[in-house]
């Protein structure tokens, strides 16, 4: 409907987000779209904060690699 798929940048972001491991993707979406902190994400995913930090780090690196 009102969702813009024409933008090629968005299309590659979509493709790369889909390629991320689910947990890593969730962390990035929670942080960026919802504005959650590490602690809030950890609480939401019932996971230690250290693990969330590691997922975000790896998710960002994989995303950068995929988009480059």
């Amino acid at each position, binding site marked *: 409907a*009102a969702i813009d798929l024409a933008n090629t940048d968005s299309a590659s972001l979509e493709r790369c*987000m889909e390629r991320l491991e689910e947990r890593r993707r969730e962390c990035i979406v*929670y942080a960026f779209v919802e*504005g959650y902190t590490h602690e809030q994400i950890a609480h939401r995913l019932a996971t230690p904060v250290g693990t969330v930090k590691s997922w975000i780090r790896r998710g*960002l690196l994989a995303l950068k690699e995929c988009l480059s």
Partner: protein
Amino acid sequence: MNLDDPQDRSVAAGEYVLGTLDSEARAALERRLTGDAALQGEVYAWQDRLVGLIRGVAPADPGPQVWSRIEAALTPTGGSAGDIAGVRAQSAPAIAAGDAAQRGNDGGTTAHDKSASTTADGTAASGGATGTAARGAANDPLWQRLRRWQITGGLAIAAVLVLASLLVLRPPAPAEGGERYLAVLQAPDSKTTGWIVEATAGGSVRLVPVGATAEVPPGKVLQFWTKGEREAGPTSLGLIEPGQVTELPADKLPVLEPRQLFELTLEPEGGSPLGRPTGPILFVGSTVRI
């Protein structure tokens, strides 16, 4: 976080854009950001990569698990409806307040605790209003709700910048009449000079093309930004035409001081939709008093 290690730097810039750095790491990165054009480039590259998550919800596609949980939380009959909806709807002011609390307090651990309690209070205090929002949302088509989240996400970022500048930053010192500043704007990578900024307190700001003009692809525009040393984020000075002199009254500037950043970024037509740079930096430089 080691800002001299390329991989750490990039992750730190990414987390800065995500908004997940703790107060200490964020402060360290922001101190470094002034005068480190390459790091600024990393930050803007991350904004560019991630902005699509706000612009279009479908491209993000975080998977059925996330959306089903969020939908469940938005259903009035759902047990935890107030919980998640409250957190989301209030995340902008609550986090902004937390952000301010963190910046305003130099003690790392204490500041963090304070931030956590501010967030909790902000969420709790606003339960009534968000309940109404959640009930209204349940009747809308999914995409409309998604759009609302996009807006909330955008607001969260904008509110952090606005509130941080209102609550934390010292008001800019009044510039004395006639002080003059000059900034040479160079391409971050090639260091090619492209523009000169000349600003006089109480007078005008002139942006003058002096050399290599970057190519502006169709559908993109050049946007002119400035950021004082103690400001949380850049202020747009409007769109500019490649190769033409632009002159603005100096009172358009939020501040005029030494080491103030001026830059030109490539933005979608009509300018950045977020009120902060989203595209790559083409030219950047900081002022010296002359």
